[in-house]
């Protein structure tokens, strides 16, 4: 299983390369450059130094005693990716890929963003390394994540509004791909999740797997054993594959991916690809996809912009079919309640995305005494304060 993907980027039947021919040679070039960089100690050393001194790794593993006590069952440990510079795990990947872009001699970096966290991480790294930066963002997401739009602009990036389709992450990716097609010569596409054409799902996983590698050592040290279950939210799947990867060979560790259950089970009301989705091709990869009977991609909904996407990363599709990981959904309401609970018991305001992972752990903890749960807090909630305010109106009354 650790040999995945194959040389064509397949995780079992999933993944692969489904892009217009214009992009195929550039994608091959990217793959070669990445494989070379991956085995270059100088590249790895530079990345490790930036992750440590600039981004703030390793992130702590924190035993959430009062939350655990409140729930009266499992002991819950939190992997604190929210404490990273820029506030989410996304910077792990942005740093890695930007170093690769520099190595490839590119001058300009483009990215898509949903919640804005990947856009902010990429704008940050571009400021650091001196790249021109354009971030594509759906108009609907710009409205939901206004603060991050301003942060990107402050960092010197151009935020390009995308008004096509559902005006969310999916449309931002399409627009970034069109930009890339037109500017392949000098432009690097810095994709933010374990999605898209090979080599992205593999490369993004590799840059995120440090989360699980650290957490594995940390939990062995602090709890004396491996966890019984790991919880992570799954948008495209980068923070989840990042924390899962080191534990995949540990058969006793349950891997639980939490998708966005939104506000109901009907099509268009959620973004739970394993609840009503079926394998299909979108934006470069073959994986589980929310689509209608004609193969048109369905609209999705989640209170969290970062989980609001119709396809799941191909490695998750494979882990799902192998039954190595389990995928469930948390609703908007459950995520909001979990965010409030974590804020009140531990003084940690999570990102709405991460709150989905917290919600599932909260749901299962009471019936799991003696168990150890590890939850990936992929990001902090600063960017979501407007949405929390809309949903907790009672707290706003002076």
């Amino acid at each position, binding site marked *: 299983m650790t040999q995945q993907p194959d040389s064509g980027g397949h995780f079992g039947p999933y993944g692969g390369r489904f892009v217009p021919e214009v992009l195929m040679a550039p994608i091959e070039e990217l793959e070669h450059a990445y494989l070379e960089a991956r085995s270059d100690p100088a590249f790895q050393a530079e990345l490790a130094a930036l992750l440590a001194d600039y981004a703030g790794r390793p992130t702590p593993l924190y035993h959430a005693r009062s939350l655990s006590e409140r729930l009266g069952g499992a002991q819950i440990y939190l992997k604190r990716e929210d404490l990273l510079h820029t506030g989410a795990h996304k910077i792990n990947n942005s740093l890695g890929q930007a170093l690769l872009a520099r190595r490839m001699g590119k001058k300009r970096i483009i990215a898509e963003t949903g919640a804005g966290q990947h856009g902010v991480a990429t704008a940050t790294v571009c400021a650091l390394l001196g790249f021109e930066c354009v971030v594509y963002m759906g108009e609907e997401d710009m409205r939901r994540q206004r603060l991050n739009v301003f942060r990107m602009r402050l960092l010197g990036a151009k935020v390009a509004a995308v008004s096509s389709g559902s005006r969310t992450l999916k449309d931002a990716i399409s627009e970034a791909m069109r930009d890339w097609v037109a500017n392949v010569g000098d432009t690097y596409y810095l994709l933010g999740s374990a999605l898209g054409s090979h080599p992205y799902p593999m490369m993004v996983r590799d840059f995120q797997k440090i989360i699980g590698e650290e957490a594995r050592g940390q939990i062995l040290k602090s709890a004396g054993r491996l966890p019984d279950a790991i919880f992570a939210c799954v948008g495209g799947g980068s923070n989840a594959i990042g924390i899962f990867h080191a534990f995949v060979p540990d058969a006793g560790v349950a891997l639980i991916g939490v998708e966005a259950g939104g506000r109901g089970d009907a099509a268009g009301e959620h973004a739970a690809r394993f609840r009503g989705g079926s394998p299909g091709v979108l934006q470069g990869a073959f994986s589980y996809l929310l689509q209608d009977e004609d*193969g048109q991609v369905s609209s999705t909904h989640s209170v969290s912009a970062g989980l609001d996407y119709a396809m799941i990363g191909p490695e998750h599709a494979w882990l799902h079919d192998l039954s190595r990981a389990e995928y469930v959904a948390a609703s908007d309401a459950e995520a909001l309640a979990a965010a409030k609970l974590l804020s009140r018991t531990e003084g940690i305001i999570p990102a709405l995305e991460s709150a989905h992972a917290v919600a599932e752990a909260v749901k299962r903890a009471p019936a799991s005494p003696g168990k150890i749960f590890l939850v990936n807090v992929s990001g902090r909630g600063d960017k979501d304060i407007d949405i929390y305010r809309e949903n907790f109106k009672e707290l706003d009354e002076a």
Partner: protein
Amino acid sequence: MTRIGQLFERLKRENRKGLIAYITAGDPHPDRTPSLVDALVRGGADLIELGVPFSDPVADGPVIQRAGDRAIAAGTNLARVLEIASKIRERSEVPLLLFTYLNPVLRYGLERLSRDAAKSGIDGCLLTDASVEEAEAYVGAMRAAGLDTIFLAAPTSTERRLKLVARYSSGFVYLVSRTGVTGEQASLSAAVGPLVQSVRAVTDLPLAVGFGVSKPGHVAELGRQVEAVVVGSAFMRIVESSAGAPELEGRLEAFARELKLGFGETA
């Protein structure tokens, strides 16, 4: 041999160049498409690409994106496009090529599509996001039903890739004129000449150039280099601006004729 192969033989015999017209099927309405195709053929189109709309067309610029949105809103799906093809076949022998993305085809089923497409009078298929690496099953199914599979060659394609594109293509090879999405351009990219040479070096198949071709002058220039040119967004802009008005057919026919005159300047 499909009608596509026959067309290119005839063009060669008659020492002519071909005009390939792309239209998004179902825009402004599926019932209207056969009559738009008739108009294009009257204007001189030699082959029709019937675009099957897809919700997320990453290879298309804004004009064809909007056409696809309108077609989907008007109830167009792959099954409906095959019905449209059957209607066209009742009165015309113009070669018909399905032009779309992989997902609607996978959803319909490869075997089922190849069977139904052949029955509807479709001659071939081009899927913009089916890379040759991933096309084995698709090509197998189409060829078994006697349909052509056309792949794209791009200015970025390496020699190794061009050989694969040529190997998997039948009927003709479709050259993307520039690194970019579909859409009208003021002038042709300088990438075309070298690309034509590189593709000629690896195949004897006829070549067509598309993406960004929109003026009689482009047609004239390309007519000196390849067997056919593809025009799409320029037709779809007419469809869009006519908003279903009765003079739409006349405008498409006139524009096809005008483009065709470009070939006259080739000689």
